[in-house]
C-alpha cells in the first residue's frame, strides 16, 4: 500500500508540474515584451524591478531607459530628479525569484541572447517557471503536512481542489509574479516545519520556521498573522499555548528569530534608506488601513467586486469544515477560525478593500494552506456521510465550484484581468458569469450601477473624497470643459434588440446655495455628431446645499440600426459650479409597457 501511494504521489506531482508549466506558457503565449499579458507588468513589475535594478542598473536611473516605468505599466516609478527607482512593493518576491533571474542571465549569456536588461521574453518565461515551481513546492509541502492528519487520498483530493478550485490557479499560472504563490509556498513550508518541529522538537526546524515566517512577513507584512499558529497549532489547551510562548521567549529562540528577521529584512531596509533616507518607510503613501474603524467586511466577503465568496465559492466548504471542527471540539478549529477572522478584518480595513484589478480576494490565497485542514475535515465527513443524496448534492457543489473557477479564469478573466462593475452590481456579476460560459445564454444588459468605489470603473481621472453618499468616493462634476462623463455604452454591447428606454438615477449634492445651471444629459453619438439627446436640469431637484438629492429621468433610446452608436450620460456644468455625484444607477427597458 505504501509502495502504491509513493508511486501515485510521484506521478501526481510529476503530472501536476508538467501540466502547470504547459498551461502557464500557454496562457502567456500571446505576451509581448511590454504588455499587460506579460508577467513583468504593473504590480508584477513593481515586485520584479529590484532584480534588474540591482544587477543591470545598480539603482541608478541614468542607466535605465527613461520611460521603462511607463512601458511596464506603472508598477514602479523612475524619479529622475532624485535619481531613485521608487517601488512601493517589498523585495521578498524578488529575493525568491532571484535564482531564476540569475539562471536567465546565464542562459542569455551562453546562448548569446540579448537580456534586454532583464526584460527579455526569456526572463518573463523564467518568472512563469518560478511561479510554477513555488506552486509545486507549496502543494508538495502542504501534502506532506496534511499527511500527518489525513489519509493520502484525502490529502491529494484537498490539494488538488485548492489548486484548481480557487484563485490560486489564477495567481500561479496567469499572474504568477504577484506575491501570492510565493506566500502560499511559504505558508505551506511553515506548516510543514511547524509540525516537524512539534514532533521532533528540533532547533533546525525552528530556524526553518523563522526563515519562512520572516520571508512571508517581508513579502506581505500582514502575513505576520501566520505566527499566531506557532503558539496555538495542536496546542490542546491554553496551558499548551503558554508553554509555547515561554519556549519562544527563551533567548535562544527569540534572539534567533529576531536575527533571522533582521537578516531577511536587511535588503529592504537598505532599499528604504536609499529611497527615503529613513530605515523604515511606509511606501504605500495615502493607502493604508483607513477603514479600520469601519471595516468593509460585507464587501470583502460578498461583493461582486472581487468578493471572497462570489469568486471563490469553494471557500464555503473551508468555512463549513472550520465550523464542524469547532462543533466537534477537534484541535485547531479555533486557531483556524481566529486566523481567518483576522485576515477578513485586515482585508476589510485596507483602503482599497477590493485590491484593485484582482481576481477575487487575493490576500486570502496564502491562507488556503491553513484552511486546507478544515477542508480536509469536511471532505472526510462528506465521505463518511450515510446519505447518498446529501453526499451527491455536496459533491456536485464542490465540483461545480471548481468548474466555475476554471471556466471563469480560463474563458474570461485571463483576458479581462479587471472587474468593471460596481460594489453591489449583481447584474454585471451574473452577466460576467454568463459571458464566461458557466451559465448560458448571456442575458442582455439590464442595468448599470456605479458607486464610484471601484477605481477601475471611475469615469473621471480621480474621484473625490470631499463629499460622499456611500463608501468613500463620489465624483466632482466641475471638470474643465463643463462636461463630466458618468457612463457610456455602445449599442453593440446590448445585442439585438436594443433597449427602448433607460431610467437614469443619481444622487447629487451642491456645497453652495446658488443655482448651478447644471444638467444631467444624455446623447446618442455617431462619432462626434450628436444624433439624439435629452437633458434633466439639476436645479429643479437641488433645493438645499450640502444635502444629497436624487435626480431621476427616463430617457428614450431611438430606433436605429447602427450598432456602433454610442450612448453617453454626463453632467453638463458650463459654469463649473461645484457639484458632486454619487450612486449612479441606470436601468434599461426593452419594452414600452
Amino acid at each position, binding site marked *: 500500500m505504501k509502495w502504491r501511494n509513493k508511486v501515485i504521489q510521484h506521478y501526481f506531482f510529476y503530472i501536476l508540474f508538467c501540466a502547470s508549466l504547459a498551461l502557464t506558457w500557454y496562457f502567456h503565449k500571446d505576451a509581448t515584451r511590454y504588455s499587460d499579458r506579460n508577467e513583468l507588468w504593473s504590480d508584477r513589475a513593481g515586485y520584479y524591478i529590484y532584480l534588474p535594478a540591482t544587477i543591470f542598473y545598480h539603482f541608478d536611473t541614468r542607466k535605465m531607459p527613461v520611460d521603462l516605468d511607463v512601458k511596464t505599466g506603472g508598477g514602479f516609478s523612475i524619479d529622475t530628479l532624485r535619481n531613485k527607482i521608487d517601488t512601493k512593493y517589498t523585495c521578498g518576491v524578488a529575493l525568491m525569484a532571484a535564482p531564476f533571474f540569475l539562471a536567465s542571465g546565464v542562459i542569455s549569456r551562453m546562448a548569446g541572447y540579448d537580456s534586454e536588461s532583464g526584460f527579455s521574453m526569456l526572463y518573463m518565461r523564467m518568472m512563469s517557471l518560478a511561479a510554477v515551481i513555488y506552486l509545486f513546492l507549496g502543494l508538495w509541502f502542504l501534502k506532506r503536512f496534511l499527511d500527518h492528519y489525513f489519509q493520502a487520498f484525502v490529502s491529494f483530493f484537498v490539494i488538488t481542489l485548492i489548486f484548481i478550485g480557487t484563485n490560486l490557479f489564477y495567481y500561479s499560472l496567469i499572474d504568477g509574479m504577484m506575491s501570492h504563490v510565493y506566500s502560499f509556498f511559504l505558508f505551506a513550508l511553515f506548516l510543514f516545519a511547524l509540525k516537524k518541529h512539534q514532533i521532533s522538537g528540533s532547533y533546525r526546524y525552528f530556524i526553518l520556521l523563522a526563515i519562512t515566517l520572516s520571508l512571508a512577513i517581508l513579502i506581505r507584512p500582514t502575513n505576520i498573522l501566520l505566527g499566531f499558529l506557532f503558539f496555538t497549532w495542536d496546542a490542546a489547551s491554553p496551558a499548551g499555548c503558554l508553554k509555547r510562548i515561554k519556549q519562544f521567549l527563551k533567548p535562544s529562540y527569540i534572539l534567533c528569530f529576531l536575527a533571522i528577521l533582521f537578516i531577511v529584512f536587511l535588503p529592504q531596509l537598505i532599499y528604504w534608506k536609499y529611497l527615503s533616507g529613513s530605515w523604515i518607510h511606509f511606501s504605500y503613501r495615502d493607502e493604508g488601513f483607513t477603514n479600520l474603524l469601519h471595516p468593509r467586511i460585507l464587501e470583502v466577503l460578498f461583493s461582486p467586486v472581487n468578493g471572497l465568496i462570489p469568486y471563490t465559492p469553494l471557500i464555503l466548504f473551508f468555512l463549513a469544515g472550520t465550523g464542524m471542527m469547532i462543533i466537534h471540539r477537534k484541535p485547531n478549529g479555533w486557531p483556524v477560525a481566529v486566523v481567518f477572522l483576522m485576515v477578513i478584518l485586515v482585508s476589510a480595513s485596507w483602503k482599497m478593500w477590493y485590491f484593485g484589478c484582482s481576481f477575487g480576494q487575493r490576500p486570502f490565497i496564502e491562507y488556503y494552506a491553513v484552511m486546507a485542514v478544515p477542508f480536509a475535515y469536511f471532505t472526510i465527513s462528506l465521505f*463518511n456521510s450515510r446519505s447518498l443524496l446529501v453526499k451527491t448534492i455536496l459533491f456536485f457543489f464542490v*465540483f461545480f465550484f471548481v468548474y466555475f473557477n476554471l471556466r471563469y479564469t480560463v474563458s474570461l478573466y485571463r483576458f479581462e484581468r479587471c472587474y468593471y462593475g460596481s460594489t453591489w452590481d449583481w447584474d454585471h456579476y451574473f452577466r460576467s458569469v454568463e459571458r464566461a460560459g458557466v451559465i448560458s445564454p448571456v442575458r442582455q444588459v439590464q442595468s448599470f450601477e456605479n458607486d464610484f468605489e471601484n477605481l477601475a470603473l471611475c469615469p473621471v481621472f480621480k474621484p473625490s473624497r470631499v463629499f460622499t453618499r456611500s463608501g468613500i468616493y463620489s465624483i466632482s462634476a466641475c471638470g474643465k470643459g463643463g462636461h463630466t462623463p458618468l457612463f457610456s455604452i455602445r449599442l453593440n454591447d446590448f445585442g439585438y434588440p436594443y433597449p427602448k428606454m433607460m431610467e437614469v438615477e443619481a444622487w447629487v449634492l451642491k456645497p453652495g446655495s446658488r443655482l448651478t445651471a447644471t444638467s444631467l444629459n444624455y446623447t446618442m453619438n455617431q462619432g462626434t455628431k450628436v444624433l439624439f439627446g435629452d437633458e434633466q436640469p439639476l436645479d429643479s431637484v437641488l433645493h438645499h446645499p450640502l444635502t444629497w438629492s436624487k435626480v431621476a429621468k427616463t430617457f*428614450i433610446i431611438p430606433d*436605429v440600426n447602427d450598432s456602433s452608436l454610442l450612448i453617453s450620460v454626463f453632467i453638463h456644468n458650463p459654469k463649473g459650479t461645484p457639484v458632486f455625484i454619487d450612486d449612479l444607477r441606470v436601468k434599461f427597458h426593452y419594452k*414600452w409597457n
Partner: protein
Amino acid sequence: MTEHNPTRRFFFAALPAMILLGIFILFNYYRSYQDTHQTNNPYALLQREHMPEVSEGLGKILSSYDFESGNANNNLSHLAFSGHTEKQSLKMSAQVQFSPGLWIKFKDLPGDSAWIRATGYAWFSCRVSEAKCSLVATCNHNGINYKYMSVPIENEAVKPYQWNKISIDYHIPPAPDREDVLQVYFWYRGQGEMLVDDIEIKLFVHDKPK
C-alpha cells in the same frame, strides 16, 4: 481524523455528482447553441400597446382621410374606384409607399399623457403573406425615429377580397424636444397593389393621476 478506505467511498459519492455536473454543462452548451442558432422572427420583436378601456368612445379626431375629394380618373392621383364606405380609396404600390396620415408637432399636442388610436381599412387581392403593408406610428427627432411601432397587415387576421380593419393604439411618449413630430401612416412594402381607405387618427387625453 483518519478514515478507512476513503477511495471507494469517494467514487461512490462523487460519480453521481460528476454525472450531474456533466449534464449541467451539456445543458448549458445546448442552451448556448440554441441561442446562437435560433432564427430571429422579426414579428416576435414587435410590441403592441392597448389603450385603457376608460378612453373608449371619447377622443378628438386629429386627422382623417376618405380619399373622396380627388379624381380617380387621373392616374397621378393614385386613387381607385372602390372604397370602404364610399366610392374611392388610395391605391398603394411600389410608387406610393406611404399613405397620408398624421404629421403633428409635439408643441401642438394637448396634455402630458395622451394616446392615439389610428384606424384604417385595407383591401388586397394577393395572398395574405404577400400583403406587405404596415400601419405605423412613430415619433421623429431631426430625422431619427423613436418609439417606432407598427402593425404589419400580413401578421393580422385579414382576408383577401374584402375590407379589413387595421388599428393601432399608441401612447405618446414624453418628447425630448417640443419640435419633434408625431407621425402615423400606412407603409406599403410590397411590389403589387393594395387599397387603403378611411384612415382616422383620434387623440385621447388622460389626466395624470394625482
